[in-house]
């Protein structure tokens, strides 16, 4: 096997993996803070991609510029979903119930997207989408590098928000103990809503990059969600850096197996690694060692 292929596989692993990380970030944030497993995340990524698509095709708005519109729009979508459904869930079965509720929400959105955009596959286009640049004889795709940079920026911003701001303190306080947080005057309800909104909003960026690198329609979301879920578990649920590392590992492991052996075993190799890691470290790579209450 030639060295270029291996270097390419490593590069692709890091770049495309970061796009998956970008899509998974919201999922891990929502789980980490709220104990909510949002299986609608897959379709929300696609919703973000479609929003970017509509803006660029109908209004001629650039993909990156469009994020200034799509990110706030998805924030609103997230807030609405949280207020209407998620926030009403209570009790010990909250996590399990959240899977059901968000699954139903994803069906609704899928049906609506099919009607609005039809089921024909589309892809986001811009002059720079297919462009790449050379560094040291290796081609770097512009859009993937942009995705990588956005992933790093967004993850850092979220990290900063959680650990360096007043809001972050109240988020983490609510996470640790809702009752005590409420007692010291934190509006737990509001914190949850905003958190969910942010978690959904960041998928707009992931959706844009995904839509620019893959042709998609609403049913693409099914492929996405299972991958996103395994990423956040491998990384450690609630861990932002973990999501990044896990996203990159997922693609990297698959690529290596594809280059060294055969692409048909790529997916399986990742899942085997996932099983082994979880058996050795049930909390995931960067998860908190104490298991959450089910």
């Amino acid at each position, binding site marked *: 096997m*030639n060295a*270029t*292929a291996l270097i*390419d*596989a490593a590069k*692709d*692993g890091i770049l*495309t993996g970061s796009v998956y990380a970008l899509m998974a970030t919201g999922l891990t944030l929502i789980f980490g803070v709220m104990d909510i497993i949002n299986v609608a995340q897959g379709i929300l990524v696609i919703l973000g991609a479609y929003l970017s698509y509509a803006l660029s095709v109908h209004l001629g708005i650039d993909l990156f510029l469009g994020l200034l519109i799509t990110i706030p729009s998805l924030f609103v979508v997230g807030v609405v979903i949280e207020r209407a459904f998620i926030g009403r869930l209570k009790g010990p079965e909250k996590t399990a119930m959240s899977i059901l509720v968000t699954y139903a929400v994803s069906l609704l959105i*899928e*049906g609506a997207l*099919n009607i609005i955009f*039809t*089921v*024909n*596959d*589309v*892809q986001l*286009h811009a002059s720079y*989408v*297919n*462009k*790449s640049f*050379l560094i040291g004889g290796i*081609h770097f*795709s*512009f859009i*993937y590098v942009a995705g990588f940079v956005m992933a790093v920026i967004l993850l850092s911003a979220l990290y900063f928000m959680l650990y360096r701001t007043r809001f972050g303190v109240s988020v983490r306080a609510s996470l640790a103990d809702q009752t005590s947080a409420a007692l010291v005057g934190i509006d737990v309800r509001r914190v949850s809503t905003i958190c969910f909104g942010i978690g959904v909003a960041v998928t707009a960026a992931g959706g844009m990059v995904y839509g620019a*690198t*893959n*042709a*998609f*329609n*609403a*049913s*693409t979301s099914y*492929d*996405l969600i299972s*991958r996103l879920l395994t990423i956040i578990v491998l990384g450690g649920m609630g861990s932002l850096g973990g999501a990044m590392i896990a996203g990159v590992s997922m*693609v990297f492991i*698959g*690529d290596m197996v*594809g*280059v060294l052996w*055969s*692409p*048909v075993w*790529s*997916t399986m190799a990742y899942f085997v690694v996932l099983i082994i890691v979880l058996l050795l470290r049930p909390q995931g790579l960067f998860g908190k060692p104490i298991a959450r209450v089910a």
Partner: protein
Amino acid sequence: MNIRGKFFRALAVSAVTGASLLTIGSSSGAASSGTLAMGAPVKIGISLSLSGDFSADGLAYQQGYQLWAADVNKHGGLMGHKVVLDIVSDASSPTQVVTNYQKLISTDHVNLVFGPYSSLLTLPAAKAVSRYGYAMIEGAGGAPSVFQAGLKNVFDVTLPVANDLQPFAKWIASLSASKRPTTAAYVTSNDPFTQPQLPVAQKIMEKAGIKTVYNKVFAAEQTDFTPIADAVASAKPQVVVLGAVDVPTVSSFMQAFEQSGYNPKVFIATAGPDQGSSFLKAVGAKNANGIMVPNSWYGGSANPMSKVMVAEYIAKYGGTPSGVNADIAEAYAVGQTVAAAVNATKGFNNAAIIKYLHSGVVVQTVQGATSFNSLGQNLNMTAYTFQWQGKKFVQINPASDANSVKALFPKPAWGK
């Protein structure tokens, strides 16, 4: 215990109401007798994937079937009966497709059925339909497994896929030594539709001295093709033969090739580029230039029936002949084949239709001459190779065909 009692009563009641709900509006199904009352419409039942994995093709098939029905009705219907299409969605699920055809036949009492989209759904559907003695005429179940099942009622109006790449490979092999590419890559999704096609081409091309530098199969459920595309690119083959079933796969490979600064001299994909405007929309019109695809029909076909159909399609949905998805013609040809059989047998008796289509008779459709062997395969058609040249989708071989134009070779640079 009283509580439990009530609760089980609720269960029993719901079971009974469930049962009675299902009974409403349904009576025992019987195969249609073949005669229709004067003025009664003829109902044709179809299950299509209007959501889920096959929905893009399902939608195109729906358009093709509807276009055919509108045409027939404009000309007085089938044997004087107005055609009514009864289309139900199977959400790309083989379980639902079985339920759907049973419902169409036994509840809706359709007179005839047309096939669903994809070999994966055609086989379970055809098995269920055959128990009712109905003919299953379809345009998208061309995988070898469909014909190996030994069903007597399946007729595929489209050329079986296995030999689709033959004219292409022969063309490459026939190029003069100075022009002929020297290396090729074969990469395919492990799908029953694509996998049988590539070895046929590989054998011919290797015989002509074209070295295989990459030959790999990737998983059908793969979502990220960049690493495979990069691996192909780093092997620098002059010809890429890609076994793909859909547009997203082809567009991912094209994008990754461009991004890694690699441009093959020849790029052919088993499906995707034949999807007309959907393909252009996904890959961008400029990048499509030079991309090839094997098939038995294209929007520019000189077939007079096809010309009429294409004109009608454009009048209804807009666009250009090049933008018409090949699925449309496949669906339309299904309708035409059935119509020919109905007219010849003077009725809607499925047994008579099956017997007629097995008789070796040749039916003319938008896709060309259609006749069936004992397995229900249509071996009467020619495989062509098509190519995107600018925004136009043209036929490039076999060279012997008058409609073939000169191939754009080598493929221009991306975006040019």
